[in-house]
């Protein structure tokens, strides 16, 4: 407010192409940036004379001790009224512009492309329908996008700086927001993507978005943050927004993540789910203790529970823990996990269990017959779970 973007860009920004604001990538951005600068200029119009007068008076009227003031005017009502009422006009202007723009931003246009957002400690699940869930938000260029957001634990807030859009996500109710992206993500060359993939695999720590500045699918992205403090890993509750240029491109991407491909091994897919669906945030696979127990000591292990009993971590137990995590909590841990009921398909759970088997120290592979049995179980399980999804969604939502 007391400096403009050019001076600041010299000081503050030596690498980035943008200075005071992140890239303007939605229809809101121009409105808001314009209003921001309008307010800032009005403020400067007041601030520069105030600061100038302040220092000028301090020097000009600085006198040795004992000198009397030149004037002892006690008040001047017209002057005081003028400077009380005068600035009010600017304030009214700011208010009206701000409120108008705000109303525009609140009214969701009809037929907006709808994505479900589930926020939890500490990650995001975007629901693209038909059982496609992914932590990244993928949307379409120049198409209004509506987010129907809910939280499964505490208050979160979804913020995309490039879109200048933000909304809290309050548990117990749906909150909605929308925006219309105007800048598309670019795609990096396959070569570069391949190179990055090899590098990341070598490091073995998952995908480093910050360092690479593109997603595992090779898209450049906009940052998406949680801005309502939500606990330990609040600052890691970030994901990315990818804006696709064409619907086909978007649909292709969605399709890629919709289901396990016919030739993908369940455990491999399970590992991808482990990374993608936020399990990795709380459960390690190397035995280290995080918010939840490590998967290294999970499958096939006899676990003591918080209520004093103990249970064998078999397939049924793992399934129950995914769907009803607060039922049987392992001793020494908080019942902090959100339910994945209605979010993981039966095949997903099956794949996760297969993956858990591979990382567990307590599992010894048996003859293949057992595995077939397991997958049969899974199919039976599917019938059980499908109808209850609706109930689950409804319950969480019943306060509005």
């Amino acid at each position, binding site marked *: 407010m007391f400096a403009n973007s050019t001076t600041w860009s010299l000081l503050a920004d030596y690498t980035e192409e943008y200075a005071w604001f992140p890239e303007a990538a939605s229809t809101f951005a121009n409105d808001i940036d314009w209003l921001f600068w309008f307010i800032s200029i009005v403020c400067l119009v007041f601030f520069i004379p105030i600061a100038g007068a302040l220092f000028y008076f*301090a020097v000009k*009227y600085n006198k040795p001790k004992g000198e009397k003031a030149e004037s002892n005017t006690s008040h001047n009502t017209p002057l005081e009224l003028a400077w009380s009422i005068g600035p009010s006009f600017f304030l009214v202007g700011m208010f009206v512009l701000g409120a108008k723009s705000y109303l525009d931003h609140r009214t969701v246009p009809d037929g907006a492309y709808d994505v479900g957002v589930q926020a939890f400690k500490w990650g995001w699940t975007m629901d693209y329908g038909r059982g496609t869930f992914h932590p990244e938000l993928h949307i379409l260029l120049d198409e209004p996008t509506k987010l129907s957001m809910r939280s499964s634990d505490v208050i979160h807030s979804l913020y995309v700086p490039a879109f200048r859009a933000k909304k809290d996500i309050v548990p117990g109710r749906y909150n909605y927001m929308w925006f219309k992206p105007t800048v598309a993500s670019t795609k990096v060359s396959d070569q570069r993507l391949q190179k990055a993939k090899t590098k990341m695999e070598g490091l073995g720590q998952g995908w480093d978005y910050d360092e690479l500045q593109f997603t595992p699918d090779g898209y450049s992205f906009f940052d998406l943050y949680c801005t309502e403090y939500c606990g330990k890993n609040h600052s890691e509750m970030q994901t990315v927004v990818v804006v696709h240029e064409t619907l086909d491109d978007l649909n292709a991407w969605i399709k890629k993540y919709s289901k396990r491909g016919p030739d993908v091994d369940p455990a491999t897919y399970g590992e991808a789910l482990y990374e993608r669906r936020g399990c990795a945030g709380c459960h390690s696979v190397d035995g280290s203790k995080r918010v939840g127990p490590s998967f290294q000591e999970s499958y096939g292990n006899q676990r003591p529970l918080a209520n004093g009993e103990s249970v064998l971590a078999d397939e049924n137990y793992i399934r129950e823990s995914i769907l009803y995590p607060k039922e049987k909590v392992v001793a020494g841990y908080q019942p902090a996990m959100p339910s994945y009921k209605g979010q993981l398909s039966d095949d997903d759970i099956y794949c996760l269990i297969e993956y858990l088997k591979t990382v567990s120290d307590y599992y010894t592979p048996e003859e293949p017959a057992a595995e077939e049995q397991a997958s049969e179980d899974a199919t039976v399980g599917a019938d059980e779970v499908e109808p209850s999804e609706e109930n689950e969604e409804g319950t969480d939502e019943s306060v509005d």
Partner: protein
Amino acid sequence: MSTGSLPAGEIRDPGFPTRSENYLTNSKGILSWLFTLDHKRIGVMYLVGVVAAFAFAGVLALMIRLHLLQPEGALFKGAEANNQYNQVFTLHGAIMVFLFIIPSIPAALGNFLVPVMLGAKDVAFPRMNLSSFYLWVFGAIFFIGALFASGLDTGWTFYTPYSTTTDTSVILATTGAFILGFSSIFTGLNFIVTINTMRPPGMTWFRMPLFLWATYSTSIIQVLATPVLGITLLLLIAERTMHIGIFDPEFNGDPVTFQHFFWFYSHPAVYIMILPAFGVISDLISVHSHKRIFGYRFIAYSSIAIALLGFLVWGHHMFTAGMGSLTTIIFSALTFTVSVPSAIKVFNWLATMYKGSISLTTPMCYAISFIFLFTIGGLTGLHLGTLATDQHLHDTYFVVAHFHYVMVGGTLVAFLGGLFHWWPKMFGKLYSELGGRISCGIIFVGFNLTFLPQFVLGSRGMPRRYATYDPEFAFLHQMSTVGALLLGVGLLCALIVLLHSLFRGKRAPANPWGGATLEWHCTSPPPFYNFERAPIVGDPYDFTPVEWDAENDRYVTVEPEREIVPDKQPETAPAHASGDH
């Protein structure tokens, strides 16, 4: 008029107090302090307490900044790094707000000054005053207890449902805040009653120094808003222990209700923090410009206006929480109205300096810094009050920078200014002027270096309360950290200057600055009973009888030789009439 020669007339100066008069020395032993009912001693104890709390929370602030030196976190390491960071910023906020800023000016300076400025012997309820201090101590113990039990990681706002589900010691901390609320109510109640009923004859409402007006407005807020915080925290405790389900979505409650309850107190609390600062600055600017305050009534009324309007704007903390459009817009409009009275004050202070006789003493340097910093803090509030821009800036570093400009650049700087201004009165010692001015300069530079970059961080989208951040923000964060260290050095410098004066300082005259308010009419430090007999109440901002006595390095009040003509000076007549004490 010139230095050295005083005009003819009766020179009035109370001289120096004897040991038995001096409130610091008139009784000895630790118990005489712990059980004192003297408002001045209670004020001094509060001063020690809040400064200790500030030092503690300040160290926490430095830890925050040091951690943010690197994107992945520099100070805390390992699996619990984020948790440690969260606890540190929570305690920094909670201690600064509840233990330092709220009681800083009203309880520490106010307790010392209100009765003296008013011309009363004590506050109306001295024992309530002492119990208010001990409640503060108990509250502080609960906070420290929370720190040692299992920490606190909710943020100072205790938002549900996070605060009802986290396994840190929320109950201890909320109990502490509840107790501190009572401490604050007691202080406020005491001041309202004191100012209403204890004014000596001649002290009319419009002869009160503006610091008293500010304290009065603050007290109104303390009395009206704090009980709501009390019940909110009580319900939060009940929510955690019995799951009463009012704020918990799991039992059909609504977390946003908690935010409404909380901010109904905590927004007015912002004015509890800043209004006394306005009072201090009004007095400082006037005394050190040796010129009548410009627009006394506008300043006085605007304090009251801020106190009342401050109750209507709490919703602007929830612009993104999903309130109805109409509610949101109404809160935005009300938010703008509250900015007008603050603007009035800034203009009035400038007009007071215009054509004054300014001495650039340490307190005046702080006052000038205050006006500069507070104006920035106030103007950036407009960006946040405007709905559209708030959608972008809400919960980012822009907010952090904004409220630090108001709370630190405003309240803290005013507190320091007030402390330097009244230090000779409180302890009877003069400090090193040069040291004081240097500390002010370092604080000014350090503060701006810390928080200016945060405005840019915010508008670039850096969310607040992040333990780690994206690498593109690193440079600005590093700037901010360097600034914070500098700010720490400046504050340490100020502390050293003041402490040094206690041991090596020159004895302070009764009126070292040339003030005209009543506290300068009694000795430095004041005697136990403040005033031997009910003081003569004059215009608090009339500097004509105050003259510089270069020989003795002091200001004195020179009463022009009186002509025996009735009604020549009608103002002083009633005060004489009451001198039958």
